[in-house]
């Protein structure tokens, strides 16, 4: 019995033990700076799928295992913390360090190493996946907005993202920052990268950070690190799905517009001046607008003046924007899905992910992208790690409708504002195209193909599809040879393959026009087609294949109070690209049949009778870039207080024709850091973190396009002869050197007690030498250019990057403020311009590098403005101290010193102001961006362009019309005869320079964290989120309502978009 009792007692005891330990562990989460509870913190038990959130008193309870473990605690505004608990623990306390103060615990990735930020002497900024998740966009680069300082999006560049880190240092070389994906530069299209796969992004801003990348790092480096699985973690499934609605673009906001009545008045005036007489008599039969056709018919007595007036009146009431709004533009939807599976055991971890994006844009153009990736790490034994990763993307883009400014009546001419695209029933109407409508109505007497152009129908027959496939393979292995020495080899293979098909089917205007243009009609009515009837297909492909191999040794040695971290390695990279295209005539997509066209002989053109050749439409290219690099990098710390670092790198490339000793360029950096708060004498309790650091070093840039010897580019098929012919593509320039940028960086990292204010402030000074710049050229040298790119310029720039965090309120309602501030003012210090001091060589809208020493790198330089002539409304400049309208003299005699330099065309002060609030399960982030201290030149009326090419501008309505108008307008009067010098002067004058300063609501991000825990066993965590993008401009300095980031007259404002989504973790 006693045994039984004893046994029962023991069993009970055991059971109790087990129960209590298998039961609940209470976690209390507090703010380390003030011991206040933190509500809404996410508590996750490592190795389980269990998540919990803390309540308002900072408590959360979690099921504890029977052998202890680790928990991870995350909360908005705090650094992620981990804590271990043992079998015996029933409650533990976790102190969260406010995010601002956590700078010292962050690890940064340079692509070569992971570096604890406390030992970094260089300038790094890290953006984590949470920050990247706050903007729901298809591409990754857009998500960097509002997430770091020193990063500027230059909205003036239409084609590229305009992204630059700490200003641009290359004057004419490649100016985009270097993008690193994990260990190697990413050679494919940045849009291939699924943002959901990115764990964090590190910006390498100064020389100490970036010089490890050597050449190409001159414009900053952006390192993207992909998500990985975790060791000892059971299977975890994450799903993220979102839907974005984008409003219809507002075509009524177009700047390049004139009302129809005004436009007709101009045409009438030109007609009265016989402006169109040449067009009427030209053998090429250029198209004339419906208004001019009407006026001609009236003049020739074909219609009565009353009929003509009625027709013009009808046209005058049309508004082509109405048709664009009704038939072309639409609101659009974008869908995004991402799924990932991750987990790991002792010896392996894995992550597999899949993503799908399906977008349609305002013009019904489609884009979809599938992406798959896998990241596997193996650690068969302690000393060896092996990583195998892949990323595969497949995307397809299909063309949509023609947008504003894409419906072109005739080459080089813009659409008439009174054009109607559809009739009252919405049926597509023909518009004036290459030849006059009366001509195409009757040309060929019915024998030719229909020669009309129906824009609302044509896009169905004129389609472009392009597909991109990108595969990335990574293999790395690292072996610990000694406790302090590791050696590793990394290899990356990348292949991107792009295929395109531009199909103009038999019904398309392009194909019909080509066939008709080359048709010869015999006198007996027989027809000969030089261009085979049918469609025209242009097939193209482009492939990029890259290999990169790196061998590297890492040292991490501690002794006494010293710690040495060092790495040395060598790298070889090759990127080979090839592209080609060919054209098929008489193409039928249904049967893939085609008819070869004779591209060797010339044929008479139907309209003019001149002989011409059919474009063979073939092209081939092949390009190979090779780099060899060796690098070394070391940091030595003493008592974790003092750190010094140094790095050196040499790159060599196959820069064509460069002398071997110029192929390579050595680049180096050195830096130091001092952690004051770790000094024994540090008494300032109010300032628990204070760290000073400085670095100096060089980065370089190389443009593979330049060459030191005369090189020819061979092109097949010269016109007339069909022989291969050559262009001189590079003019021998034996003095060619690499661009070099030196940068000094000095910074302070600090955190005040209670996280009242924390962050970092950095000052940097940049100076570039041997920059590739345009040097003006006496074109008698015959280089077919007015300027030649050579190492010609030097620049220097000063800047400040600051990141300030402050926690203003704590739980239950927490409010955290982050300010990113960037200041950058770069100036040209030297620029070779020869003897010329002609002002016309220096006039600039601020979008190209200014050649004026001492002026901002992107200076806006203009002719001085003397107002409109009160009698005539002519624009006036200054000549010999007096107002003048002698435009030829103003353009030719104004010297560089007489110009007005308004200031920088790039924002001098810029950044973001983010506010994050959280209350219980809700959190809200509002990001506001600002760009200040810069100017741009707005587009205005150009009468020569209006008369000849139909370029319109809203300013037309504000033009000077009668004496007195000059008091409130600077838009010149309408004149004829005209002088393009007059337009040129006005459009490059001070009168059109406008302040670019503006403040924009960048995004709003609202999340609801669904209460996790027992109640929702189905999943461990779920978030619902809403995201507003492009919400609009809050304030702008210009009075015209122009968006300085999109001031090109033919750009419509970006419509706002709203995204909603859900993120679930199972």
């Amino acid at each position: 019995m006693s045994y039984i009792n004893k046994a029962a007692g023991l069993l009970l005891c055991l059971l109790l033990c087990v129960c209590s330990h298998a039961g609940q562990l209470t976690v209390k989460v507090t703010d380390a700076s003030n011991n206040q509870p933190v509500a809404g913190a996410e508590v996750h038990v490592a190795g389980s799928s269990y998540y919990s959130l803390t309540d308002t008193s900072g408590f959360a309870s979690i099921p504890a295992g029977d052998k202890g473990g680790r928990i991870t605690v995350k909360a908005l505004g705090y650094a992620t913390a981990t804590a271990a608990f043992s079998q015996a623990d029933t409650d533990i306390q976790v102190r969260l360090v406010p995010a601002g103060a956590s700078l010292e615990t962050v690890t940064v990735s340079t692509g070569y190493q992971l570096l604890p930020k406390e030992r970094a002497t260089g300038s790094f900024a890290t953006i984590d996946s949470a920050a990247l998740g706050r903007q729901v966009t298809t591409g990754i680069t857009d998500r960097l907005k509002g997430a770091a300082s020193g990063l500027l999006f230059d909205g003036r560049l239409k084609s590229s993202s305009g992204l630059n880190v700490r200003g641009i240092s290359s004057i004419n070389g490649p100016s985009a920052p270097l993008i690193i994906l994990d260990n190697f530069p990413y050679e494919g299209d940045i849009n291939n990268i699924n943002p959901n796969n990115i764990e964090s992004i590190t910006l390498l801003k100064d020389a100490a950070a970036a010089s490890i990348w050597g050449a190409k790092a001159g414009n900053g480096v952006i390192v993207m690190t992909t998500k990985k699985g975790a060791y000892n973690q059971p299977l975890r499934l994450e799903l993220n799905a979102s839907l974005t609605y984008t409003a219809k673009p507002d075509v009524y906001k177009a700047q390049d517009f004139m009302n129809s009545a005004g436009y007709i008045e101009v045409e009438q005036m030109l007609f009265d001046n016989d402006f169109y007489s040449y067009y009427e008599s030209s053998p090429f039969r250029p198209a004339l607008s419906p208004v001019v056709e009407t006026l001609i018919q009236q003049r020739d007595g074909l219609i009565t003046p009353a009929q003509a007036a009625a027709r013009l009146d009808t046209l005058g009431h049309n508004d082509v924007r109405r048709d664009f709004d009704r038939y072309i533009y639409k609101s659009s939807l974008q869908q995004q899905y991402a799924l990932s599976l991750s987990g790991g055991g002792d010896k392996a971890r894995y992550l597999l992910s899949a993503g799908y994006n399906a977008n349609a844009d305002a013009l019904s153009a489609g884009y979809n992208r599938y992406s798959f990736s896998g990241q596997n790490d193996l650690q068969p034994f302690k000393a060896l790690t092996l990583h195998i990763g892949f990323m595969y993307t497949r995307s397809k883009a299909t063309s949509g409708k023609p947008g504003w400014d894409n419906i072109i009546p005739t080459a080089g001419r813009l659409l008439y504002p009174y054009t109607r695209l559809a009739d009252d029933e919405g049926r597509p109407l023909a518009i004036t195209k290459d030849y006059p409508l009366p001509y195409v109505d009757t040309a060929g007497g019915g024998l030719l193909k229909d020669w009309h152009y129906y824009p609302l129908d044509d896009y169905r027959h004129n389609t472009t599809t392009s597909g991109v496939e990108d595969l990335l393979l990574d293999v790395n292995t690292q072996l610990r040879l000694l406790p302090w020495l590791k050696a590793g080899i990394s290899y990356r293979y990348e292949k991107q393959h792009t295929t395109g098909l531009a199909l103009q089917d038999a019904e398309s205007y392009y194909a019909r026009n080509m066939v008709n243009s080359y048709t010869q009609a015999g006198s007996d009515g027989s027809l000969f087609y030089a261009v085979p009837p049918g469609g025209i297909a242009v097939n193209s492909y482009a492939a990029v294949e890259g290999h990169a191999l790196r061998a590297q040794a890492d040292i991490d040695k501690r002794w006494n109070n010293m710690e040495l971290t060092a790495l040395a390695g060598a790298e070889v990279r090759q990127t080979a690209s090839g592209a080609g295209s060919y054209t098929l005539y008489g193409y039928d997509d249904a049967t893939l049949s085609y008819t070869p066209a004779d591209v060797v002989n010339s044929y008479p053109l139907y309209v003019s009778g001149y002989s011409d050749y059919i474009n063979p439409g073939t092209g081939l290219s092949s390009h190979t870039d090779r780099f060899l690099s060796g690098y070394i990098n070391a940091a030595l710390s003493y008592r974790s207080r003092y750190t010094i670092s140094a790095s050196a790198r040499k790159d060599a490339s196959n820069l064509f024709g460069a002398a071997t000793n110029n192929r390579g360029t050595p680049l180096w950096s050195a830096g130091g850091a001092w952690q004051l708060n770790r000094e024994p004498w540090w008494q300032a309790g109010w300032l628990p973190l204070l760290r000073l650091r400085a670095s100096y070093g060089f980065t370089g840039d190389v443009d593979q396009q330049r060459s030191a010897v005369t090189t020819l580019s061979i092109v097949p098929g010269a016109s007339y002869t069909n022989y291969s012919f050559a262009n001189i593509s590079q003019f021998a320039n034996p003095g060619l050197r690499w661009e070099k940028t030196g940068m000094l960086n000095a910074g302070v990292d600090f955190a005040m007690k209670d996280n009242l204010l924390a962050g970092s402030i950095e000052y940097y000074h940049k100076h570039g030498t041997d920059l590739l710049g345009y040097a003006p050229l006496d074109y008698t040298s015959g280089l077919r250019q007015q300027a030649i790119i050579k190492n010609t310029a030097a620049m220097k720039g000063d800047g400040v990057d600051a990141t300030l965090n402050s926690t203003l309120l704590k739980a239950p309602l927490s409010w955290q403020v982050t300010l990113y501030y960037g200041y950058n003012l770069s100036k040209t210090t030297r620029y070779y311009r020869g003897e010329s001091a002609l002002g016309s060589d220096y006039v600039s809208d601020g979008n190209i590098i200014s050649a004026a020493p001492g002026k901002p790198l992107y200076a806006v330089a203009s002719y001085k403005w003397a107002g409109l002539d009160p009698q005539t409304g002519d624009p006036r400049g200054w000549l010999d101290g007096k107002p003048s309208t002698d435009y030829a003299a103003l353009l030719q005699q104004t010297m560089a010193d007489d110009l007005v330099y308004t200031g920088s065309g790039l924002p001098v002060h810029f950044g973001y102001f983010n506010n994050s609030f959280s209350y219980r399960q809700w959190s809200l982030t509002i990001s506001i961006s600002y760009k200040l201290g810069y100017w741009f030149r707005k587009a205005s009326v150009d009468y020569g362009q209006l008369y000849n090419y139909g370029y319109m501008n809203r300013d037309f309505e504000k033009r000077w019309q009668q004496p007195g108008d000059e008091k409130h307008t600077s838009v010149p009067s309408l004149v004829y005869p005209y002088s393009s010098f007059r337009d040129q002067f006005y459009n490059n004058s001070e009168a059109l320079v406008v302040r670019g300063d503006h403040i924009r609501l960048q995004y709003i991000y609202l999340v609801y964290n669904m209460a996790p825990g027992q109640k929702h066993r189905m999943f461990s965590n779920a978030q619902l989120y809403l995201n507003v993008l492009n919400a609009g401009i809050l304030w702008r300095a210009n009075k015209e309502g122009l968006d300085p980031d999109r001031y090109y007259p033919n750009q419509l404002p970006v419509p706002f978009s709203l995204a909603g989504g859900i993120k679930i973790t199972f």
Partner: protein
Amino acid sequence: MKNLYIAITCLGIILAGCNKYLDKKPDKSLVIPSSPADLQALMDNNDVMNNNRAAVGEGSADNYYLTDEDYNSFYRESSKSLYIWDDDITYNDFPNDWSRSYDAVYYANTVLENIDKVTGGNTGDYDNVKGSALFFRGCSFLTVLWGWAVVYNPGTADKDLGIPLRLSSDFNETSVRASVQQGYEQVLEDLRQAYMLLPEHALHAMRPCRAAAFGMLARCFLSMQAYDSALVYASRALALQAGLMDYNGLDSLSNAPVPLFNEEVMTALGMIQSSNLYYGKIDTVLYNSYDKDDLRRYIYFTSNADGSHSFKGNYNNSGYYFCGPAVDEMYLIRAECEARAGKTGDAMDDLNTLMVKRWRKGSFIPFAAGNADEALKIILSERRKELLFRDLRWADLKRLNLSPQTAVTIYRRLNGTVVSLPPGDLHYALPIPQQVIALSGMPQNPR
């Protein structure tokens, strides 16, 4: 430590292979000229070499006029300036006639500098490409001399401001103006060397041939008023190529009646497209000087709705007006030189050989002249009527203005005003682009 040695050894091996690895050329279609074929490809770039000839001479000449309306509608101020011999042309668009004239010079110089360095091919390849380069360079210098320098005047040519003679491809070399004498000597030198190298028959009309080099020499001597030499070279050209089209076989209703690369073309050169020439209407007096039975009246011109006439007799059958040497021009040069030498009969024979192919079948009455002066007058008149829009008139005006018998003042009537250009006016040497003057420090043509 052992590992470190291995690493160092590996690195050594890698570095040794570096230079070879880096010798890979980045762009496959890029070549450093290494064979005569590479250089020939440069000469076959007909956009640069052939159809890139300055049109400012024809634009300044009196074969055409612009209506006020057309003039006022012009967008390019340089086109307007050119028409009225105004110096604002110096504020120029780029590329412009000056720059484009020198593009061909650069290509030619590249060939001439590399021809002795390249390998492969056979002698004929070398001769052809070198001859072509010299031919094109000579042609370019001659066009520039005609446009931007004063007329060749044997008495003052060694002092008159000529043109920059760029003979090397080094773009850092500063441009200096050689004398007019040096300029013409360079042209003659280039063309003489060219004819010795060029084949009698080129593979294509776009490639220079020996007859064309003789033709250009004849042209050059004619503009130097060296009529004996011009006669010699015109004859040598005609000895190689003398075929004439019969205009009775052309379709006068066509918009482009003259066939491309026809038998009269020695080498096809074309002028830069020019709105002055496109918009230009044929001088009324000139048009009316064509007889009703002169087929050129129908082949060369088209009637406009307003009763004016436009030119369509382009031997290039495209937008580039033909300005290369041709058989008809050689007959006219020889006829003129014969007349000037007093050989009236020979002169009229040459003229009539040409003219019989230009008149309506059966209606042609051979031209007759009682003496050499009469013959010269007829020949000069027919020269103008045959060779308009071929970039010859401006140079003809310059040289003919030297003699009071043939001097003329030309006029532009525009918006109610008249601008005149008397013989010997300084504006016969066009202003050099201001940017070039600013960068090189060369003296501008005096005004």
